[in-house]
C-alpha cells in the first residue's frame, strides 16, 4: 500500500516537472525566419505601381498615404552560399521593401502581409529622413516609434536626405550593403572636417527634449552613389528642418564647436594653392557679459602640417614664409566661421554651434534671463569675435620649394 502511494507521488512529480515543456518555446523565432532590418528611409508618401495595383484590387485599409517607409533587409540568399558558388554573385546582398501609410509603426506591421519573413529591428543601423518629410513633420513625431521600441538600439544613426531618402539605400556595387556604407562613411570624420560627429538616436532624444536647434548630417544620392554633403538645420522649437548648410558652412561649424578630428584647409599664398592638414585643434567659445550685453569670443588653436605647397620659391623652412602661410590659413578658417555665423544669424536665425550651451554653463543666471525669449532670435543679434592661431609644426619630407 505504501509503495503504491509513493509511486503515485513520483508520477505526480514527474508530471509537474514536465509542465514547463508543455508551454513550448513561445517566443522562439529563429534568426533565419525573420528579416534583419538594417536601414530605414522615411519619405513623403507615394504609391508605386504595385501599390496602386493592390489598391485597385481592393487591398489596403483606411489611410492618407502620408509616409512611405523603405526597409532595407539583408538578402540572405545572396550571402553565405559562397561555398556553393554559382549565380549568387549576381544578386544584390540587400533587399528594399517599401510600404506606405500614416503610422510608422503600423507600416512595419504591414510587412508580414507581403513578406514571409517579418522584420525585426535589433540590427537597425541607420534611419534616413527625407527633407520633404522633415520640413513638414516634426522629427520627434517621425522617430517616436523608433525611440520607444526597445528592440532598436540607441546607437542607430539618423541622417537627412535632401532628395528621396530611399535612393540613399541603393547601390550599384554587388555585395555592398548601402546601410553599412553610410554608417562607415559617417565614421570617416578623422579624414575630413566636413562630416558631423555621428548623431545616434541616444543623442537625438536629448536634443529633441531640450528644444535646442541642432544639425543632422545631410546625404545626397544619385544613381546608386551617395555623398555626405553639408547638414540640415533643425529648429529646436518645431523640430522641423528649416534650412541646409553647405559643405563649407559645415566646415565652419566644426571649427567653432571644436569637433575637427582631421581634414584639410585649402588656402592660397601669392595666388598659389597651399593645403594645410589639421593634426589637432582646440576651440573655445567664451561668452562675455559687459553691463548686460552678451558677446562671444571664439578662440581656436590648431596645429598641423603643410601637406601641399604650390608656391614658387616658397621655402617652408624659411620662418617668414611659414608665418605667411599661417596667416593665410588663419584668414581662411576665420572666413569659414564668419560665413556660417552670418548664415546662422541672418538667414536661419538659429544657433546650432553651441553658443547657447556655453553661455548656460558659464553664466547660468544670464541664461535664465535670456531663456525667457527665444534664444535663437536673441543669438542672431549678438556680436562674435574670432581669434585663430595656426601653427605649422611640420612641412613634410621636402624642405625646399
Amino acid at each position, binding site marked *: 500500500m505504501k509503495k503504491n502511494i509513493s509511486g503515485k*507521488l513520483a508520477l505526480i512529480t514527474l508530471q509537474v516537472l514536465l509542465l514547463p515543456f508543455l508551454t513550448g518555446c513561445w517566443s522562439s*523565432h529563429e534568426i533565419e525566419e525573420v528579416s534583419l532590418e538594417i536601414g530605414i528611409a522615411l519619405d513623403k508618401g507615394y504609391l508605386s505601381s504595385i501599390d496602386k495595383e493592390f489598391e485597385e484590387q481592393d487591398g489596403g485599409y483606411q489611410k492618407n498615404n502620408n509616409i512611405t517607409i523603405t526597409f532595407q533587409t539583408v538578402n540572405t540568399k545572396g*550571402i553565405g552560399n559562397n561555398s556553393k558558388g554559382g549565380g549568387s554573385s549576381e544578386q544584390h546582398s540587400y533587399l528594399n521593401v517599401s510600404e506606405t501609410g500614416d503610422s510608422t509603426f503600423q507600416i512595419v506591421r504591414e510587412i508580414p502581409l507581403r513578406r514571409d519573413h517579418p522584420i525585426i529591428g535589433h540590427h537597425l543601423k541607420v534611419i534616413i529622413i527625407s527633407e520633404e518629410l522633415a520640413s513638414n513633420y516634426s522629427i520627434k513625431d517621425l522617430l517616436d516609434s523608433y525611440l520607444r521600441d526597445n528592440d532598436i538600439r540607441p546607437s542607430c544613426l539618423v541622417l537627412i536626405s535632401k532628395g528621396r531618402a530611399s535612393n540613399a539605400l541603393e547601390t550599384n556595387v554587388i555585395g555592398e550593403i548601402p546601410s553599412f556604407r553610410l554608417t562607415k562613411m559617417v565614421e570617416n570624420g578623422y579624414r575630413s572636417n566636413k562630416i558631423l560627429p555621428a548623431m545616434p538616436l541616444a543623442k537625438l532624444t536629448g536634443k529633441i527634449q531640450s528644444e535646442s536647434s541642432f544639425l543632422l548630417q545631410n546625404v545626397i544620392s544619385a544613381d546608386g552613389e551617395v555623398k555626405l554633403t553639408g547638414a540640415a538645420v533643425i529648429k529646436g522649437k518645431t523640430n522641423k528642418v528649416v534650412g541646409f548648410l553647405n559643405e563649407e558652412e559645415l566646415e565652419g561649424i566644426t571649427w567653432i564647436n571644436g569637433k575637427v578630428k582631421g581634414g584639410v584647409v585649402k588656402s592660397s599664398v601669392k595666388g598659389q594653392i597651399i593645403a594645410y592638414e589639421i593634426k589637432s585643434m582646440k576651440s573655445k567659445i567664451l561668452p562675455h557679459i559687459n553691463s548686460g550685453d552678451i558677446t562671444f569670443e571664439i578662440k581656436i588653436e590648431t596645429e598641423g602640417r603643410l601637406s601641399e605647397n604650390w608656391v614658387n620659391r616658397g621655402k617652408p623652412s624659411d620662418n617668414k614664409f611659414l608665418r605667411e602661410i599661417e596667416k593665410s590659413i588663419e584668414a581662411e578658417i576665420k572666413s569659414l566661421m564668419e560665413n556660417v555665423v552670418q548664415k546662422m544669424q541672418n538667414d536661419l536665425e538659429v544657433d546650432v554651434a553651441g553658443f547657447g550651451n556655453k553661455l548656460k554653463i558659464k553664466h547660468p543666471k544670464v541664461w535664465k534671463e535670456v531663456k525667457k525669449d527665444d534664444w535663437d532670435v536673441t543669438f542672431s543679434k549678438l556680436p562674435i569675435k574670432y581669434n585663430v592661431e595656426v601653427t605649422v609644426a611640420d612641412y613634410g619630407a621636402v624642405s625646399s620649394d
Partner: protein
Amino acid sequence: MWKTIASFLPDWLIIIQSLIIFLIPYFIWRFFIYIRERANIATIKQESENSQENTCNFTGNLNSDLKFIKKEIGHNSDVHFREFNIGNTGIHAVIIFIEGLSDKDLIDKYIMKSLMIDFSNENISAFMTEEGFNNIIKQQVLSISDVTNTQNLNDLVMKVLQGSTALYIDGSADVFILGTTKGKTRSIEEPISEALVRGPRVGFTEKLSENTAILRQQGNIKSLSFIKFQVGKRGNKDLVVAYIKDLANPDLIHEIEKRIKKIDIDYLPESGYVEQLIEDNYLSIFPQLQSTERPDRVISALMEGRVAILLDGTPFALIAPVTFSMLLQSPEDYYERWIPSTLIRLLRFLAAFIALLVPALYISFISFQPGLIPTKLAISIVGSREGVPFTVLLEALIMEVSIEILREAGLRLPKPIGPAMGIVGGLIIGEAAVNAGIVSPIMVIVVALTAISSFAIPEYNAGISLRVLRFMAMFCAAIFGLYGVILFCLFLCSHLVKLKSFGIPYASPAVPFNLNDWKDFIIRVPLMMMKRRPKMMKTKNSIRQK
C-alpha cells in the same frame, strides 16, 4: 467595505497560478526526499542480512584436516598439495600453495629443502612437545621472513588464495602460513590518463603494496600513515587510507574510516566502487572524490591535509575531500612558473565555461535574442543557416550527440585504426553534413569548440559531468532563451553551494569566501606567497613555509 477589500484581492487564476508555483518546488523537494528514503531503506535491509561466518578450527590430525581443506579448495586445478616427511623423523607434513601465485623457487629452496634434507635430529628431544617443535621449525628451519600461524580453516584458505604457502605438520593444529606471494605485476609506467609535460613519469600500478611503496619513496615523510582495511564480503581486498598524521584533521580521518567501514558489498573491482559508496551526494552530477594515477598528486594533496584512499587492484587512488576548483587544476600548475600557470589556469576556467554554456548561448542567441550578436555575424549566421531543415536545438543535438558517439567510439576502437576512424568520422560530420545542408558550418564550429574545451579539463570525470550539464543547459536555452540559461546557472550554483565533500563545501574558497585560499584558486600566486596550507582543510599545522 468588503467590496473595496475584494477589489484588491487577485483573481482566482492568479491564486491558482501562485499555488502551482509553490507546489512545483515542493514536489521536487518531496521527490528527492522520497528517493533518499528508499535508498536508506535499502541499506538498512542489507545491514540486517549480515551473514555470520562459520568458524572452523583444525584438529591436529593431518588426514582428517587435509580432507577438510581439500573439500574447501581441493577441486581447484591450480591448488597444489605436496605431501612429504620431515627429515628422517617420519613426521608427515603437507604444503599447500597455488601455482603461479607463489614463488616456487622459494618453496623449493627454503621450505622443502630445509624441511626434508637440512633437517637434523639434533634437537629431537624438543619434539616431545608440540609447542617446542613448532618453535624449532619457525626459529631454526624455515629461513623465510614472513611466517604466521593460524588454526582456522577460513584463514588458511584466504591466505593460500592470496599466494601464501600453508605448511601443515601432522600432530599440530597450528598451521604455518609462509609468505611466498609473488603476484603478477607490471612495471611502473607513465600514467596515461594524466600525462604531463613536466613532472614525474611515475604512475601507480595495480598492486597496493607497490603503490604504498611508491608513496613512501616520494620523500622521507615520517608521519605518513597507512591504515589498512579489509573490504568486500565475498572477494576480500585490501584498502589503505593514507594521510599525514600531524597535518590531517582527525575528524576528517574519522569520517572517512567510518564510511569505509560501512561499505558492505560483495566485491570491489575498482576504486570507483569505493568512490560511489562513500560519496556525500549520489544524486549530484559532480565527482566528490578525485581519482588520480599520479603519486605526486596524491602526496601534494596529503600535504594539504587531505586523505588518500588506495585500493588493491587498481592504479587509481582517491583523494578526499574535493573542491570544484581542484578539478580544474593540474599538478603542472605548481611545477611551472606562476605567470604561465595562472594564465593556463584561467584558460581552463574559460574552457569549462565554453564546454558548459556555449551551445546553450548559441541556441538562445539564434532563436530568442538575435539582437545580441554583432550585425555582421548575425548576417553570416543567417546566410549559413539558410536551407538548414532543423531548428537550432535539433541541429545542436544532432551534432553534440554525434560528437559524443565519435568520442565513445574512438575510445573503443583498436589503436591502429582509432585515429583513422576519428578523422573519417570528423570529416563526415564536419564536412559532408555541412555540404549536404543538414547542419550549418557555424554549428560545427560551436560543437567542435565545446568538444575540445571539455577535453581541456584535466579531470576526465569532471569533463563528463560538464558535458552532461551542457545538454541540460541546451534544453533550458531552447525553452526560455537567455532567461533559461540564467535559470540553469542559478540552479547549478545553488546546487554547487549546497554540495559538500566530506564536510568541505564544494565551491570553497569562493563560497564560503576565504581570501587566503584564493591564492590557489583561479590564479596561482608565486610559491613564496603560499605560506600556509588551505584554510578550508582545517589542518593541525597550517604553516607550509616561513
